[in-house]
């Protein structure tokens, strides 16, 4: 999550106390990802260390206020102008589970897919109910919240479509008698060459 850049971008609107930043971040993202005070101040410390923000005591000396620096503004512009690259996502966990399951003997893959699809559909329904309760957004924080819900809805939908697709793919492979369970490869690995995933017909049938 781009907490660092988000806080910096909010500071571009105007100087804030740490607790103000927490509130601003949350109301601008539909209160979907709450932040704790520790995350806020750790992030601010790093931003200050990197010269992206500066802090000054309040007029009454009670609290620190944070200001964005010109380097900070450049960082924000760079963030907005570049794509978000996803190294890994939560969905990979599901892809791994399904990938492993398909290689195991005695696993009802159709059932694994169905259980997941039901759960994801339930999530999709919950998100849609939240959206149904939000009428036409009038303020930009309401609009921002709706964008976040939409994003979660489209992700859930994509997962369901992938599950449907996988189900059909597996059914075809199964109907063609292909891709049975994968036994442990007992061939010792040779030095200098990667082990080949070859199996004998007898092993595949066992």
């Amino acid at each position, binding site marked *: 999550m781009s907490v660092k850049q988000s806080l910096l971008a909010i500071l571009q609107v105007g100087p804030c106390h740490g607790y103000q930043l927490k509130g601003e971040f949350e109301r601008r993202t539909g209160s979907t990802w709450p932040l704790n005070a520790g995350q806020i101040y750790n992030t601010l410390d790093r931003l200050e260390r990197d010269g992206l923000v500066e802090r000054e005591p309040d007029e009454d000396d009670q609290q620190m206020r944070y200001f964005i620096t010109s380097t900070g503004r450049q960082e924000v512009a760079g963030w907005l102008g570049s794509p978000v690259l996803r190294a890994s996502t939560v969905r990979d966990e599901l892809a791994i589970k399904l990938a492993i399951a398909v290689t195991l003997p005695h696993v009802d893959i159709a059932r694994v897919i169905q259980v997941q699809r*039901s759960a994801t*559909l339930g999530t*999709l*329904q919950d998100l849609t109910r939240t959206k*149904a309760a939000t009428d036409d957004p009038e303020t930009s924080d309401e609009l921002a919240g709706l964008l976040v819900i939409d994003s979660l809805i*489209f992700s*859930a*939908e994509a997962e369901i479509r992938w599950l449907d697709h996988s189900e059909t793919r597996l059914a075809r492979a199964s109907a063609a008698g292909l891709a049975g369970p994968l036994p442990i490869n007992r061939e010792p690995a040779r030095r200098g060459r990667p082990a080949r995933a070859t199996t004998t017909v007898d092993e595949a049938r066992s």
Partner: protein
Amino acid sequence: MSSDILLQLDGVAQHYGRGQTAVTALSGVDLTVRAGELVAVMGASGSGKSTLLTIAGGLSTPTSGEVIIEGSWLSTMTPKAIAALRRKTLGFVFQDFNLIPALTAVENVSLPLELDGRKRSRARSAALDALGTVELADRASHFPDDLSGGQQQRVAIARAIVGTRRIILADEPTGALDSITGEVVLRMLRRRVDAGAGGILVTHDARHAAWADRIVFLRDGRIVDESGSRSVDGLLGARP
């Protein structure tokens, strides 16, 4: 609670042809729709979704099983009586809107009432009420061609709930609309259901099905799974 049931399918099967060439479109389908409940039917093309909808709406007679619409058993009724029941109780919403181009919005909505023998002025008044519930009262005298796709579909929803009609049977109602307009239509459908209607929403899109209270999966003419089954009371509690 049984008085809340608007529509019931009981062991419904539909076969076409005989012997070796027989095709089973539906088999042993049980489905109940209560007032305030929207049921989504999902499935791949050819799974029997549209057949289910035409049988639920009394447009075709199943090979076996019973369809009960607001307490009336269709198997005991003449085609003429079924047509009259249909006009009084339910309306279809199709992907391509199916409005009559030569009639204005309000005339399209009042048509089922007029066909049912209601006075023109009363039918018109009920149609204006129905158009008001889909926020189109100000477009009443527009012809379909002068309305956007989303507006036409909202007219179709108004037609489906005009007068005493409480059952909406929707077949891919957002299929011809962009995603934001489609959402407005589903929101409107959801609101009509929350106000006491009941409906079946046939779709292949999970994002659309998610507007329903229950989601039923159809595969090869059979219901294979149900998701999101929660009490309607609980759902209403969750909504503001």
